């Protein structure tokens, strides 16, 4: 089961990447499929927790570079086929049946998707319709690499915390934070594809999500969110002269961090109260 969960983790990321590198109607369809695979990943994780099998979020390093979208889609379809066979050994037959059913439908749709040439790995370092200065391009490029990884890391951290918590109040907060990070990850991934620098985020180290001291993690997290606000402000300033549109987007992301800070403060207060009550 552990292998199936790892492979589903990889399929979720690969399908996100396929979404980033594609265009038109199928782009959103691929993001929807990726969201379904992410939920499969959490179902499989929950099963591992229930049967008491140790697991982590390690996976293989993945290079998704492709000249045509079909190159990656064929790889995903092949992996899903193998995964479907592995599900035969799953102890939760109902879950395995549901996932198999999804796999069969999704692979059928993927097989019929219109192929296209991929520009997401061109290393063009040019944002369509925007003439950024060399300095702004460097700042923007660096931001995208840093923050796309960071959002992926946050998705995994909050997902792990949620999987190991039975506190409804906290789980509501963790789910909102996962959803927010999914949106940011999607936004930055699309921008990376447009800049021709799309890449899969690196593997997250266990000690980051297997959090031992949640209170300290939340305190540090609030500081990190404040730093992220500053990063967004600086980037908005760096690109503002060349692109008011990009600047407005980063101001928007900057203000979104306030939600995260509020949620993390709420979670911190809840944890602190729980510890005091005990």
């Amino acid at each position, binding site marked *: 089961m552990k292998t199936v969960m790892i492979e589903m983790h990889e399929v979720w990321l690969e399908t996100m990447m396929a979404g980033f590198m594609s265009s038109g109607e199928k782009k959103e369809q691929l993001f929807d499929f990726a969201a379904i695979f992410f939920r499969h990943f959490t179902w499989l994780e929950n099963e591992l927790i229930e049967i008491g099998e140790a697991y982590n979020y*390690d996976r*293989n*390093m993945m*290079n998704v*570079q492709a000249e045509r979208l079909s190159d990656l889609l064929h790889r995903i379809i092949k992996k899903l086929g193998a995964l479907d066979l592995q599900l035969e050994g799953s102890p939760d037959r109902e879950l395995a049946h549901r996932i198999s059913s999804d796999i069969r439908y999704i692979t059928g749709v993927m097989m019929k998707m219109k192929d296209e040439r991929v520009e997401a*790995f061109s*290393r063009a*370092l040019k944002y369509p319709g925007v003439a950024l200065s060399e300095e702004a391009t460097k700042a923007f*490029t*660096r931001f995208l*690499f*840093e923050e796309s*990884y960071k959002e992926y890391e946050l998705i995994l951290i909050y997902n792990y915390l949620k999987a190991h918590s039975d506190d409804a109040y906290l789980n509501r907060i963790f789910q909102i934070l996962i959803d927010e990070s999914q949106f940011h990850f999607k936004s930055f991934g699309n921008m990376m594809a447009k800049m021709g*620098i*799309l*890449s899969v985020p*690196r*593997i997250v*180290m266990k*000690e*980051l999500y297997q959090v031992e001291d949640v209170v300290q993690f939340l305190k540090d997290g609030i500081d990190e969110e404040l730093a992220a606000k500053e990063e967004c402000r600086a980037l908005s300033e760096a690109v503002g002269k060349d692109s008011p549109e990009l600047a407005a987007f980063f101001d928007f992301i900057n203000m979104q961090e306030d939600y995260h800070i509020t949620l993390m403060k709420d979670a911190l207060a809840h944890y602190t109260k729980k510890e005091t009550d005990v």
Partner: protein
Amino acid sequence: MDANAQLIEHMMNPQNYGSMENADAQGIGKNPDNGEKVLIHLKVKEEAGKPVIEDIKFQAIGCSTTVVAGSIITTEAKGTDFDRAEDIVAFTLGMLDRVPPEEAACSEMVAVALKAAMDVYTQRQIDPDYPVISYKIKNSCETTEEVGDNQ
């Protein structure tokens, strides 16, 4: 390929990133200021009485500059014997005063992690249970803001 293109290449496809099962030694380079760290895993073989880095992997809690440094340094170190790898460490540490502080801290973390892993391997030839070594870096990536006249 110019320097910028090489950096982009390492950011898009970091080499030797990940964990390693059955590593012969591991070492850590740590920034005590902010908790960032680099973990290096080594698979070592003995050739003509000298230890040689057969395989090397690294993992990082840090920024993309650390990942680029890890990708470059581990690529250089892979396949070399410990003498050459020590030279790579010395060369990296020797050039730190010529790069911006934040980049110096990242490269130093990788270099001292490699040094720590080699030291662990050497110690394990005497004591197979020798623990993982963690070396702290001297550079800080915290940059101090200049206070302007208008503050």
